[in-house]
């Protein structure tokens, strides 16, 4: 019936198809453009929908007007039969150039419309974006929640960073990220550090697996995560410095350390880097450059200086967490003298 109406209209003027998006807005599109999309085509031909404003074709949920516009642009270009493959390819390359968020939306919309050529194109573009990135970078790019436990995240990462080029890249990315963060934001985390970690792989593994409560490293890492209300300028720290800060935290924990909490992204990257640097040292092909080592040494010295100067201020912050502390003596620490000092200072009600 509606087709009959169309037949009358066709020879005189361009025929249009009516489409409705979920927000309720209806638009009309040239028939040949819209028909390039199989779902629309089928709806139109088999069910007769879309021929008038009162009976528009209802588009799937994920197709909002903006996306529909993009999709129709794509159809408009490609439905013209006379174009060469090269032309189409060039168009596709340019079409795909948009920010990641939009690209995701477009992929989603094309997929819900089951529009295969565009789905293929957008998926390939997204694949290119993902390739070569670390998990954290992927999370940043797509605004994904950081909800995996540290153990889950780090396990495979530790083992795939053995291509020297990629590790170097990761290091560079991590450094760049650090620099940007420091420039942009105030510090939320109380320690942003790059461990120059001397522990062996076995120690690290046992730490990850939750064993070895007496290991210095265990307390260090776990306590760091539990106490994060610190504004720190420091970039790096030695393990001894972190122990110093942890002395108070250990006290507050009452020895109830039995699970690993999720670290913030920056800390993950630090841990990642620390593992990275660990592998660097064991890898003769891709050792740390002497320049890098020097830089790290310099940074360590800087941090030590900063730490010593800010201690009174930090002491106050620690105290703001609570008034009383029960102290648990730590065994097996490297800089026992440093640890003993803060505990003495904190011991009051």
């Amino acid at each position: 019936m509606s087709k009959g109406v169309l037949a009358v209209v066709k020879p005189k003027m361009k025929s249009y198809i009516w489409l409705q998006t979920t927000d309720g807005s209806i638009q009309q599109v040239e028939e040949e453009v819209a028909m390039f999309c199989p779902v629309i085509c089928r709806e139109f031909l088999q069910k007769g929908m879309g021929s008038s404003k009162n009976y528009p074709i209802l588009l799937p949920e994920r197709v909002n007007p903006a996306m529909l516009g993009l999709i129709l642009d794509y159809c408009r270009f490609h439905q013209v039969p006379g174009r060469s493959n090269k032309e189409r390819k060039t168009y596709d390359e340019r079409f795909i150039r948009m920010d990641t968020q939009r690209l995701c939306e477009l992929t989603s919309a094309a997929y819900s419309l089951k529009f295969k050529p565009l789905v293929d194109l957008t998926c390939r573009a997204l694949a290119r974006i993902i390739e070569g990135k670390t998990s954290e970078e992927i999370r940043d790019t797509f605004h994904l929640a950081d909800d995996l436990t540290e153990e889950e995240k780090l396990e495979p990462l530790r083992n795939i960073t053995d291509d020297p080029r990629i590790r170097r890249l990761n290091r560079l990315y991590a450094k760049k990220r650090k620099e940007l963060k420091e420039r942009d934001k105030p510090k939320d985390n109380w320690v942003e550090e790059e461990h120059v970690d001397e522990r062996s792989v076995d120690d690290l593994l046992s730490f990850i697996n939750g064993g070895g409560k007496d290991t210095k490293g265990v307390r260090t890492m776990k306590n760091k995560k539990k106490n994060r209300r610190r504004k720190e300028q420091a970039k790096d720290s030695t393990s001894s410095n972190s122990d110093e800060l942890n002395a108070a935290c250990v006290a507050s924990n009452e020895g109830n350390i039995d699970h690993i909490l999720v670290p913030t992204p920056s800390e993950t990257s630090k841990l990642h880097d620390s593992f990275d640097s660990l592998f660097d040292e064991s890898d003769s092909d891709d050792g740390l450059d002497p320049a890098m080592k020097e830089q790290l040494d310099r940074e360590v010295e800087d941090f030590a200086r900063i730490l010593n100067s800010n201690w009174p201020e930090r002491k106050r912050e620690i105290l703001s967490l609570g008034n009383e502390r029960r102290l648990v003596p730590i065994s097996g620490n490297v800089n026992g003298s440093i640890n003993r000092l803060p505990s003495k200072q904190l011991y009051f009600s």
Partner: protein
Amino acid sequence: MVKAEDLDLCFGKLMMATAGKSDEGLKMEGVVITEWKDIPIELLLRIVSLVDDRTAVVASGVCTGWRDAICFGLTQLCLSWCKKNMNNLVLSVAPKFRKLQTLILHQEYPQLEDNAVETIAKFCHDLQDLDLSKSFKLSDCSLYALAHGCPDLTKLNISGCTAFSDEALEYLTKFCQKLKILNLCGCVNAATDRALQAIGRNCALLQSLNLGWCQKVGDVGVKSLAYGCPDLRSLDLCECVCITDDSVIALANNCRHLRSLGLYFCRNITDRAMYSLAQSRVKNTPAMWQSMKGRYDEEGLTSLNISQCTALTPSAVQALCDTFPALHTCYGRHSLVMSGCLNLTSVHCACAVQAHRTVSNIPYPAH
């Protein structure tokens, strides 16, 4: 005294702060979803299938949504690019990727150890295709583990795994009876007559077997293989020096689909073997009218390597070449390889003869 709850509260505030950051991207305009995390699983898997394997592993560690999607949907994985930590990598990813059907762990430098294979066997029960080539460090424990854990194996490559014994391989065949493609190249201790007898008993679906450099293989084993695996299409007996004509005759009579045969350096092979192969083709023809209509091999043997089989004479090999039209000696389609057989230079395939006639002045190199 600071209570654990206080700390949790501080931590919780921080967590929300981070979560809030990511929520900035979430535009709640009506029902339209712009948040990437709501992408359908199929779409995510499609994208992951387009990236390289290393990125796929990284992607599984991005967030719980991606991890679940990838662990649910990833069926093929190759970790051969991992040059140093493959063992640990397998230990960490195998428990996650339980739907794996194809796993390629070919190594340049031997890294895999038994615990990795045991982990694979423990978690990846759907595994059909496993490549463990050049895993020098593996011991029989791996084969026993695979036997129990991966009964659906159809393709197994353990070439270069010299530490395996025939007892373990025999055990494996009892459980992995669906094996179609088995590569035992270089498995000197595993590929013995005893193992081949076990294969013949258990793996009736076997189509391709590589016994290259397995010098303990003898007639007893190959005959059992021929009787037990009628569907055999490709057999490589390279450097299996103990083989005699009896093996080839058994193969010719029982493996009617044999397409590729490698007899490099099998010095005991004589014309008898060649004639038996040719005759089997003739015998095959009436069979076509009976039950094997759709499966009749039009071409028969397509590839034969008789290099260094110096006992062969030109007449026998020529007869063979004439019987199987797919055996070529011509340049470009060279499938009848006779390197080192100086007395076979006169053997030509039909097309080579044609070419020879047209360009009669140019001497034709036999190999």
